[in-house]
């Protein structure tokens, strides 16, 4: 049994800690997740006596540990949660050691709260996945791992908890480690660390346990303090700066305020303004603490340009080496977050970085988060994950989510209720475009042309094509037969049938284009309030 040793008081000063690590804890109701966080807060002295006093009161009332302090109650904040003994919402916790400050996203493990877990994972550098040593890898372990992987978390700490209940058996630990490695092989994690713990008793959480002499790795806290989550790719990526707010205090100053999403900017650098398509150079990097020569990802700055060009919120300043193009079509991975299901073909407002657009959502596939497989789908229920194609009403700058979280993560908003109905992760940024093979492009072009001629836009392309083609062929044959009966001339009949087969769809296409153009124009007039960002 370990002897818990408090981290000394002078160590808990948050703000001298030079670095910040954000992490998320994933576990199900009985995995001991809240107890683990309570333990980290308690041992790092981030809990005060008056809070402990009220904890003591609550423990007697709601606790599951008899007269002992129930550390889980420290983190279950809402009254409903304390009564039901579950964590419903994302809660954020803060603690620190001399080396690092930590922001913990404490999220519920139930499948019906997948969106909360995704929220917590969206800004996390690392995820702690809790596994009950008695139960091993469960379906929820797969689900949690899949979600954090999808949201771009690259570093995992698997806390194998309740080791005290399996007699700190090394074989149990080794088996779970092996099972997890097999399960997570396809999830693309950069580092996975396995730690045997007992959150309830404190073993290997902040202090090394005497009961696990066979384990020579770090304690959970040591790992959190030392893990390196910076990726080399971030260091010299090209600049991407979404303009958030135009700063114009007087006629002599026009600055573009925003947070750098990727890369580094220096005074004198040449930048492109997308989707506008103009170029200029950085004149100044303005901050209230004086001008900078250079700034990089994560910094909130104000840039001025050497040329008087029109730039507004929603535009992105990118380094000229960045050949990415703005786009109106996005392939995204969607997580549906509300009760009403997504019906393919519906329209929503999209918000990505500082830009806003209207998006038509065509769902292609749903992904089973237990088996990691996908299948064709037309609907997505709450917490469902799918692959969809978004068609926007304007050009925006978007990047692959894996490359730039801030320019690849988006939300969809219902314009009647204003709810956030989905999270989206851009899968094929503009950079992926050249990677499509010539054959794929030809196929896409062929489908596009054929679809324009014969297809019905409200149906999947292949199905509507088969339907339309067979109808056009049938119509042409009947017309040919009628001409043959009247004229007796086989060549003429064949010619008329052929002309009918080609000309009728073309005429119909032009007709449809005209009708759609009129409808679009009317829709645009209605949504003109959106043009400036629509209050988003």
């Amino acid at each position: 049994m370990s002897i818990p040793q408090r981290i000394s008081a002078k160590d808990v000063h948050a703000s001298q800690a030079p670095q910040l690590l954000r992490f998320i804890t994933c576990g199900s109701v009985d995995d001991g997740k809240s107890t683990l966080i309570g333990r980290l807060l308690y041992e790092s002295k981030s809990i005060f006596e008056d809070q402990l006093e009220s904890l003591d009161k609550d423990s007697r009332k709601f606790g599951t540990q008899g007269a002992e302090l129930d550390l889980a109650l420290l983190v279950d904040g809402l009254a409903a949660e304390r009564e039901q003994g579950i964590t419903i919402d994302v809660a954020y916790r803060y603690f620190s050691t001399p080396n690092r400050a930590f922001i913990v996203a404490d999220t519920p493990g139930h499948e019906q709260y997948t969106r909360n877990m995704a929220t917590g994972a969206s800004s996390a550098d690392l995820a702690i996945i809790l596994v009950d040593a008695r139960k091993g890898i469960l379906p929820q372990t797969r689900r949690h791992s899949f979600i954090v992987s999808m949201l771009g978390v690259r570093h995992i700490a698997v806390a194998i908890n309740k080791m005290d209940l399996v007699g700190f058996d090394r074989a149990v630990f080794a088996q779970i480690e092996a099972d997890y490695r097999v399960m997570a092989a396809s999830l693309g994690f950069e580092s996975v660390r396995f730690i045997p713990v007992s959150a309830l008793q404190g073993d290997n959480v902040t202090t090394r346990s005497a009961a696990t002499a066979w384990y020579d790795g770090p304690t959970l806290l040591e790992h959190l303090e030392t893990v390196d989550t910076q990726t080399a790719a971030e260091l010299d990526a090209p600049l991407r700066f979404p303009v958030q707010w135009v700063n114009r205090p007087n006629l002599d100053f026009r600055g573009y305020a925003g947070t750098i999403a990727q890369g580094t900017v220096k005074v004198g650098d040449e930048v492109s303004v997308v989707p506008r398509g103009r170029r200029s150079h950085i004149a100044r990097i303005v901050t209230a603490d004086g001008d900078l020569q250079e700034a990089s990802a994560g910094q909130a700055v104000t840039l001025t340009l050497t040329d008087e060009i029109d730039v507004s919120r929603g535009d992105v300043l990118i380094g000229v080496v960045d050949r990415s193009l703005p786009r109106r079509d996005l392939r995204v991975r969607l997580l549906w977050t509300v009760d009403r299901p997504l019906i393919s073909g519906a329209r929503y407002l999209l918000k990505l970085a500082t830009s806003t657009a209207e998006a038509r959502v065509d769902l292609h596939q749903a992904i089973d988060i237990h088996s990691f497989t996908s299948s064709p789908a037309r609907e997505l229920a709450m917490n469902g994950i799918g692959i969809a194609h978004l068609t926007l009403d304007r050009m925006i700058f978007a990047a692959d989510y894996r490359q730039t979280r801030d320019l690849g993560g988006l939300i969809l908003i219902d314009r009647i209720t204003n709810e956030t109905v989905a999270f989206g992760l851009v899968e094929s940024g503009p950079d992926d475009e050249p990677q499509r093979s010539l054959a794929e492009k030809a196929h896409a072009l062929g489908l596009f042309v054929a679809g324009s001629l014969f297809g019905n836009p409200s149906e999947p392309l292949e199905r509507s094509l088969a339907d339309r083609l067979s109808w056009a062929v049938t119509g042409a044959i009947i017309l040919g037969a009628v001409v043959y009966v009247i004229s007796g001339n086989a060549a003429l009949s064949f010619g008329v049938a052929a002309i009918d087969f080609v000309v009728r769809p073309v005429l119909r296409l032009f007709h449809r284009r005209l009708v759609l153009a009129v409808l679009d124009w009317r829709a645009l007039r209605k949504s003109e309030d959106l043009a400036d960002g629509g209050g988003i």
Partner: protein
Amino acid sequence: MIQMTHLQKLEAESIHIMREVAATCDNPVMLYSIGKDSAVMLHLAIKAFYPAKPPFPLMHVDTTWKFREMIEFRDQRMRDLGLDLIVHINEDGVAQGVNPFDSGSRVHTDVMKTQGLKQALDKYGFDAAFGGARRDEEKSRAKERVFSLRSDEHRWDPKNQRPEPWRLYNTRKRKGESFRVFPLSNWTEGDVWAYIAQEKIPVVPLYFASVRPVVERDGALIMRDDERMVLREGEEVQNKMVRFRTLGCYPLTGAVESTAATLEDIISEMQASRSSERQGRMIDHDGAGSMEQKKQEGYF
């Protein structure tokens, strides 16, 4: 690539949130309550919009029971910064004679603070109000969003809060609805003091230890800031070396005995402290979940 410190990251996040409000809300206001969190929030607002001034007014909902030194500090600060401040007092409450001694802390806070705030927001038609609350202050605040949606009745529905992935905030709302926006959500008490020291931000002198006239009442040290506090039988005013960890209405804010007279002293005292800053706040002790209930009713 510049490695940002913990405080630089927090600062950048807060600035991002403030700019998002300026860019997407029609009529925002910053609630300025004079304390250390408001001091940091105001400093960040000045940074966020530099060289322009913050593109929104500041407002103080005055309960008429603040420490006199707070009001002096407030007025001096506004003069120094050249900013305009709206001061709102719930005159109905004053007319009804609501006060913390006779009406009790609960009624006083509800009428003078919560109702006063709602009156002011309605009067000026503000659709977003910045507040300096932090998630580490209290359990139900740990789950508060950065953009907290309030109904047209200013109520908070904990079950109907929008998810906030990445730095993306859904700032759409219906007419009549409003946001309470918390740019310091991810700051801790330690971060606030360290930032005040780093940026040399002026704060109300009451945070620093000094000899002050206090009365021991209901287990707390209450500073007798003016004659309105009538001594009960057996009570006497003592001069003690005290300071305040948080500042509110003086009859509801307990002092702590301390000799910490500088920022460095305060920071090291806080690190050694074993009680939370809100311990001195009488209004928090109406039972577990009482902050959650106040928030649902429209409290910040």
